[in-house]
């Protein structure tokens, strides 16, 4: 596994930090929803570290807390207790403004429902994070991205003129365009057929291998998990499995055991 592919040129966010410290480090995360008897503990003391330039997947049955974990790691939700560090920055204490700029500058997102703006073209959707920041895209990087996701001839199309797979590829490019420290992907293949799923997963794999991108993906698709370097499995709010995923069949086997 090319976990040492990170070099100062290709890897966004690689500062003068020792490579052995994870780029995303969660310590003792607890998350409780509701109060009193109706309270539900979605996370019960999760500590985990994600290495720079690796592709990790988080699996688990519905209600296992996998989505909650990702939301907290990405600064979209706050833990009841515990802390999250992204690229050396403690994020649990940040206010909305700081979290917003962290998301804008250091994080990339891929969603299950693509979530593109229907009024913008494919290319405009890709550069959206930069537009929001009021920045101009690095043309070379943008061309390379568009080329990589295979949308060179579709760049001026609007999302409604694209297939689901193409839309998700736009979303992948959008997540990568600002060279974020981490890309969070929430069920990125959940709404795609197997061919399109494979395309998207190959893209994510390539981003890790070629650009040294760090990717954290929540999925319940064993096929998707098999593309990752590492597979975490959650159950009832804690990590019950943490290893290389192996093949899709092996992943299914693991999950069966957990269930």
């Amino acid at each position, binding site marked *: 596994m090319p976990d040492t592919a990170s070099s100062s040129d290709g890897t966004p966010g690689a500062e003068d930090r020792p490579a052995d410290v994870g780029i995303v480090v969660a310590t003792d995360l607890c998350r409780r929803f509701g109060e009193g008897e109706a309270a539900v503990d979605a996370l019960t003391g999760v500590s985990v570290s994600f290495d720079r330039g690796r592709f990790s997947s988080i699996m688990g049955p519905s209600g296992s807390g996998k989505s909650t974990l990702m*939301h907290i790691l*990405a600064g*979209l*939700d706050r833990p009841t207790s515990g802390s999250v560090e992204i690229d050396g920055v403690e994020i649990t204490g940040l206010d*909305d*403004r700081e979290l*917003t*700029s962290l*998301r*804008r*500058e250091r*994080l*990339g*997102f891929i*969603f299950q*429902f693509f*979530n593109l*703006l*229907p*009024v*913008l073209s494919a290319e405009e959707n890709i550069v*959206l*994070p930069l*537009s*929001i*920041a*009021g920045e101009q895209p690095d043309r070379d990087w943008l061309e390379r991205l568009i080329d990589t996701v295979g949308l060179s001839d579709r760049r001026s199309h609007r999302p409604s003129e694209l297939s689901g797979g193409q839309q998700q590829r736009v979303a992948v490019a*959008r997540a990568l365009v600002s060279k974020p420290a981490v890309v969070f992907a929430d069920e990125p293949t959940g709404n795609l057929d197997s061919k399109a799923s494979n395309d998207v997963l190959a893209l994510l794999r390539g981003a890790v291998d070629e650009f040294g991108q760090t990717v954290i993906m929540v999925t319940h698709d064993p096929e998707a998990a098999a593309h990752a370097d590492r597979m975490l499995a959650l159950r009832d709010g804690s990590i019950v499995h943490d290893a290389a995923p192996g093949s899709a069949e092996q992943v299914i086997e693991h999950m069966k055991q957990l269930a």
Partner: protein
Amino acid sequence: MPRLAAKNLWARKGRALTTTLAVFIGVALVAGTYVLTDTINAAFDEIFSESLKGTDVVITAREPVKQDSGVPQTFSAELLPKVSKVRGVSLAAGAIFTPGGFFKQNGDRIGSQFSPKFIASTLPPRLESLTVTEGHEPRNPRQATLDQAGADSAGLEIGDPVRIAGERRARTYRLVGLTELGNASFGGASIAQLTLPESQRVTDNQGRFDQISVAAAKGAQAAPLAKRIAAIAPSDVRVETGQQNADRQSSEIRDNLKFLQIALLVFAGVALFVGAFLIFNTFSITVAQRVREFAMLRTLGASRGQILGSVIAEAALIGLVGSLLGLLGGIAFAKGIQALFKAIGIDLPSTSPVIETRTVIVSLAIGLIVTLVSSLAPAWRSTRVPPLAALREGELAEARRHGLLFALGAVAVSLIGLGALLAGLFANIDDSGQAAGLMGLGAVLILLGVSLFSPRLVRPLASVTGIPLEKLRGLTGRLARENSQRRPGRTAATAAALMIGLALVTFVTIFAAGLKGSIASAVDRNFQGELVIQNTDGFSPIPSAAATAARMVRGVGTVSTLRSTQAVIEGIGKNKVSGLEPATANRVLTLDWKQGLPATLRDLTDGEAILDDAFASDHGLEVGDRVRMGTNTGDQPSFRVAGTVGDDADLFGSVIVTQASMKRDFGITQDQADLIKLAPDAAADAVQSRLKAALRNAFPTADVLNQAELKSNQEGQVDKLLGLIYALLSLAVIVSLFGIANTLALSIHERTRELGMLRAIGMSRRQVRRMIRYEAVITAMIGAVLGLILGMIFAALISRPLADEGFTLSYPIGTLIAIMVLAALAGVLVAIGPARRASRLDVLEALAYE
């Protein structure tokens, strides 16, 4: 299903609230109009019946031609002893009740500017309707009473001096009593009482009365008594029972208020029209958003009728609640409108609010009908939802694209409207009410047609108005523009509502500017004289002695008087007639001669008249023809047409006669204005101050104006009226702004997930707010641009016929720009709420939102 409708409303409180508010405002204006006019009528009824308490028969002068000035005709006092001798008369007394002016010792006017002040004589106690609340009635020529409200408003107390001006020089009286007329309120009007001889003297009516009040002897009936008196009375008086007299006055007031009522109802109609857009739009959007819900109900077995019923029931509930609130609000609105009138100097009498059954029925019916009609199309669309839609994923109910046929239909509606408007303007329809109705219908159809066509205009207009924002603000501006173009129909309907209000605002703004410009240029062209004396209220006559006094002032060269009256021109109808002094008029006036020369005026004899050129050609009158007029004296003098003049600003009405004829044939002795030409080398400023000083004490109702002041005075009147119209139109504009907020809120609701994504990938709350604000600004600007264009077209068209009369259209660019800027700011303002809500969305919830 009704229960479901109620629950749906409750679940969408915000939307229900704005929709209800739209109904509320329109209905409140309707109800308010009725309550206001009914209340004013009731107040006058109270005044009339109170003032005739104890009076069984009333004798007044006949008015062959009802005059606008309000100065009553008088008749000879010799009638009184004859009346007293009629069988069944217990007591008869003559009285004076004539407009005048009241002032404090320092010259300040008592009472509001445009409200009438009456000089009244005292009557014997049995016939006297005013009751003294403090002090006593005037007992000698130096004493006066004042109505309590008038005295209070001026801060006067018993013992204070008060100056009263009639036709004669003003005199100082001692205030010896305060009076009231039962519980009736006069509004801003005021009554000062003097002894009978003094009131006759100060109004220059010695030996004359304008009323004889008669009390019947015990057992004598009013009606037969009136008949017996009429038998001995001359033909120039009218004998009525007290009841008949009160009824006649009431019905005259009602007729006068009819115009106000119609005018206010027009504004109510505008607000309702705009409200209909809001209701239509809101229901369209919510029906679209609830497609899945309807489909689900259909899969559960609900029939189309039930779905339709639930939406209609929702509309009915909103209509009913809005109308009921509007009805209640109408009472407050009535007070508000009255306060508005008061603010521009028209202080109408009032009493406790009168709510007629008609007001209740009309208000509720209108509110309900408007709501139901506006929601009909969306409700019908809800029944077209197939059950399968419940199972479909993704974006639902793609806005139906209207075809070319629809656009052509919209154009056709506009053209029919234009046709009606032009017909109303140019087709020479004799009934001015019918012509106005046709023009109104035309305007409504044009507005409707443009509204229906406007979805096609949204894209280009949003691009035009959005480009500056995009250039300035980049992404947020871009997204705002794109979002406003997403559902052109929705944006169009929202903007169209604002368009209607702003089209009317623009129209009256341009029209008023043209009016002011025309007045100013008419003054410039016609008035040679440097100074003008006229009544402080701008329309009442002034004592003729003022001209005499003015002639004595050093530096005054020529004083030439202008009188005016109304007369019924044979075969034509009531028209304004002016009197000039042939010997001097050419020194102070430059007439726009069409046929004739200044010498025509100089040599004008008492049997000759000069006609307004437009009037003459309208009625086929030429120089040498004869014109017969019925005047207020009851005479029917005939005049030979000696010449014609153009009279752009209707300074002289239709006919000009000599001053001598004015007095002899028309019975007019008071001047409308005194036009002054300075002596050579005299300085206008100095002469003006000397004139003011000379008139201040003796003739406080007379004001000396130079040309600039005359113009600004007239412009001030136009501005006041304009202010009133703005205030009434603002309600329609406010409704349309609610519409923007509503559409925005509903659209944001639809775009929740998108907003969640934008926030997730790093858009700040501020950027979200900005984006939504700009969307509102773009919508508002679309409405403003369309409204401005339509308003300008209306102004250009409607002023066409007036162009012959010298009306020059001018576009007050500054004001029009201000309207645009205000519209944009209003967009920002109404977006505050929706923008704030959008920026506060929880990112995770928004992302999970479907």
